[in-house]
């Protein structure tokens, strides 16, 4: 019998809202948006945690510019370090720049281990940055965190929308409440609005394609000044806070 499973709800008990940032598709901006959202919620005086769950390719630390010497503190478990007011947990603390050849089963086992020993304390929001796909990590987060909400990210590309459509169908089957869809890297007219309507999911708004984003990566002050960050604030106000999702 695995003793870790029954402690997980306990560890997350004082967190009001758990949000998994998902897409099915890679490279649509899940990590950038998760990280920015955590920073911006913290600036709105919310207590926020950010958990990078892409154990093959963690990268929230690159967006935030978390220095390498920062580490969790061991105290009756692991206490995630606070960086720019965000409690941040990542496998990168331990693996540094090394290869992470974890199979799906190993990745979720590692996630379960960290969920069972991490002491988040009281939080208003825990943002979970998921890897692409609808595989082990997504399925197990849904299984382990019964009150998790899904926030869906997509680009306007045909190559993203078919995969996102598969994901939305899956979330509906699994009865995960969906906060809505954020369209990222928008340029010109939106097809995503109609897509969201067709899929019967709330369209939360668009973030523009912004070519100043790249040089802002790793510098929180610059990041918060980008067009992407500014557009995200409105979505957070209207689409994340006080939105309890459509249980599908």
């Amino acid at each position, binding site marked *: *019998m695995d*003793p870790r499973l*029954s*402690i997980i709800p*306990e560890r997350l008990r004082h967190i009001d809202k758990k949000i998994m940032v998902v897409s099915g598709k890679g490279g649509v901006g899940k990590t950038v948006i998760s990280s920015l959202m955590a920073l911006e919620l913290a600036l709105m005086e919310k207590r926020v945690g950010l958990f990078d769950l892409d154990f093959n390719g963690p990268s929230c630390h690159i967006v935030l510019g978390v220095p390498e010497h920062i580490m969790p503190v*061991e105290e009756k478990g692991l206490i995630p370090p606070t960086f720019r007011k965000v409690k941040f947990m990542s*496998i990168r603390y331990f693996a540094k720049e090394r290869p992470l050849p974890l199979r799906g089963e190993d990745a979720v086992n*590692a996630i379960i281990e*960290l969920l069972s020993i991490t002491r988040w304390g009281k939080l208003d929001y825990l943002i979970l940055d998921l890897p692409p796909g609808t595989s082990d990590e997504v399925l197990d987060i849904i299984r382990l965190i019964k009150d998790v909400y899904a926030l869906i990210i997509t680009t306007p590309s045909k190559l993203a929308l078919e995969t996102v459509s598969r994901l939305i169908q899956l979330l509906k089957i699994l009865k995960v409440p969906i906060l809505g869809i954020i369209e990222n890297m928008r340029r010109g007219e939106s097809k995503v609005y109609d897509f969201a309507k067709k899929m019967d999911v709330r369209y939360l708004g668009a973030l523009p394609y912004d070519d100043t984003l790249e040089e802002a990566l790793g510098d929180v002050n610059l990041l918060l000044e980008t067009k992407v960050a500014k557009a995200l604030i409105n979505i957070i106000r209207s689409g994340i806070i006080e939105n309890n999702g459509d249980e599908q």
Partner: protein
Amino acid sequence: MVHEWALAESIVKTVLDIAKERKIKSVLSVEIAIGQLQQIELDILKDALNELKRGTLLEKAKFIFVEEEAEFQCRNCNNIWKFSDVKKDLKADEAEAIHFIPELAHVFIKCPRCGSPDFIVLKGRGIRISAIRGVTNGSPSFDNS
């Protein structure tokens, strides 16, 4: 390595959940398999368990620890080896990383024969509750879970 406290909490919580489910009034003993890979500090775990059990159904429980050697099998060349064969090559921070997250073995350990990090942990990964004994309405109950 004081995160053993968190592991102790998860053991106590799990045993209490099972006891409730099986209507156990008092837990007599709990058998815990301790996988070698996680390098648990057994004394700290024991102290934590003994502190956490107070005032619960586990008050009178004895904890029995069964240590399990860690063993790996390479998916590339099928070679089988033991954690004790390679442990000495780990740096302190690498061993500590594996202590927190045993799957990090795939980051810091390689097959001694072919060098692959793609292996199966055959046994000895971490903590498992292997048996609980307790009393339900006066009669002892044995459970191999």
